[in-house]
């Protein structure tokens, strides 16, 4: 569990973080979501102990983070842009990391197996593909089996297969770890996270479990598509809040939003049947993370 309280950080006159407070629960993947320049990297750098906050405190499992080197052993961290020592071989790098934490070959072997690095062990990191470099960094981050993982945009620059593999590996790790990932890729966040923190302009705008956040921003809204040019008869239904109609390619689309939270699917189908409307497509309009993100970040503009 990571707890932060009122963290403030400025670079000269620019306030990167304006007193943010949040909690990251254990055995979960929490995604720190925000547009570029929102303060994601600064937040992660402070949590990893690379930068010191101007004000505020960070707690790991109830203990206040200080400059004690022992605290650094709780954290596995991949910085933004995935920096690596390009002139070292994979083995040399992992041996260096293992020695730094007073660990041996056994831990290196486990990390190598988990990150599938066996075939590139003797190669220089600089000669590896982006995907392998990412795996090397992940192996470095998990080698000392830290209870906390902080990953700054871990799949940026990877091809879809590599990104999928990295996400699967991260999902596998969540069983016994507190994981905080920063990203601005919404599909990635949706695919991987249990909890969401949305940050914009140095402030936390929304936080909570993914499902409850989606529920909070969801509307009781349905999409109906009809063949041909159809007149809007749904206005006759009860509890309608808003109807938008769109005619395109010989079809008519209605988005109907109801005031109440009741499931209206049967009512809509019955209504369309009674009115003999040529229904060709019908579904509940689900709120996606990108809609929530866009709504929240635009509200703050």
């Amino acid at each position: 569990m990571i707890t932060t309280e009122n963290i403030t950080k400025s670079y000269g006159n620019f306030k990167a973080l304006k007193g943010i407070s949040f909690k990251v629960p254990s055995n979960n993947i929490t995604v720190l979501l925000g547009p570029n320049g929102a303060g994601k990297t600064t937040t992660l750098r402070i949590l990893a102990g690379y930068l010191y906050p101007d004000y505020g405190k960070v707690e790991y499992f109830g203990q206040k983070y200080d400059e004690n080197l022992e605290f650094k052993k709780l954290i596995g961290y991949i910085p933004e842009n995935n920096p690596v020592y390009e002139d070292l071989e994979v083995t040399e790098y992992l041996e260096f990391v293992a020695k730094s934490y007073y660990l041996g070959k056994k831990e290196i072997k486990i990390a190598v197996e988990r990150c599938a690095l066996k075939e590139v062990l003797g190669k220089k990191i600089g000669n590896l593909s982006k995907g392998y470099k990412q795996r090397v960094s992940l192996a470095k981050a998990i080698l000392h089996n830290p209870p906390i993982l902080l990953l700054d945009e871990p799949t940026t620059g990877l091809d879809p297969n590599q990104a999928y593999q990295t996400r699967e590996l991260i999902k596998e790790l969540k069983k016994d770890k507190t994981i905080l990932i920063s990203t601005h890729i919404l599909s990635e966040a949706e695919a991987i996270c249990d909890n969401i923190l949305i940050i914009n302009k140095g402030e936390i705008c929304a936080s909570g479990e993914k499902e409850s956040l989606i529920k909070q921003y969801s509307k009781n809204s349905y999409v109906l598509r009809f063949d041909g040019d159809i007149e809007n008869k749904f206005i006759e239904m009860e509890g309608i809040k808003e109807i938008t109609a769109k005619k395109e390619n010989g079809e008519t689309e209605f988005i109907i939003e109801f005031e109440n939270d009741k499931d209206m699917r049967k009512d809509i189908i019955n209504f369309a049947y009674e009115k003999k409307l040529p229904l060709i497509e019908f579904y509940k309009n689900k709120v996606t993370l990108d809609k929530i993100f866009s709504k929240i970040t635009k509200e703050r503009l």
Partner: protein
Amino acid sequence: MRAENIKTLVSKELKHYLNTPPSYVLASVFLLLCGYFFAQPLFLINQANLNSLTDIAPLILTFFAPALSMKLIAEEKKTQTIEILLTMPFSEEEIIISKFISASLIMITTIFLMFTYSITLYFLAKPDTGHILGSYLSLLFTAVCFLSIGVFASTLSSSQINAFISGFAISFFFYLCGKVTFFLPIYLQEAANYIGIDSHISNMSRGVIDLRDIIYFLSISFIFIYLSINKLKNMRVR
């Protein structure tokens, strides 16, 4: 500060040096230049001593030491690997001291290879052993002193070129200070003579090991290492 951490970091830094060709090129150029200045008086005026070498070597070191140390922190900043180091269980003191030690080890090895020059003197004549050992000792102290300046210069920027220029400028100041005393007012001459590296080298290369000279070299190294540690700490506060 843990010795085990320093050992781990020094071993990593040495791998960086040994895995990259520029380190070998740099050491070879240094040995060639010093070899030339060693051989010149030997063949031209039949003098079996290291005077010519100890005169010119500090000037060569004002280039060589910053060139060897310019990448130590600047490269880590540029490639952002400094973020990896500072979030691992190492203190700033351990990081700076390890980098200084590893560069010093490469420098000491290079200077050690120069012993082959003086061995040839023993085949040709009967050189003064005190002078030979003193000369090498003065070279070692000067090199280590300039390396500490190079490490500090490397913390100032993320560009290796800037780090090299700053390192050279500071080292050259110490080199020049002792050489221009006669241009200065009398009340400044003694201070400039002490600050300049010249007087301390000339004592040692004569075979006179004075504690004041050793304290001088160690103090400069200590000051610049201390400044480097502070600079690295300040970077995290920004």
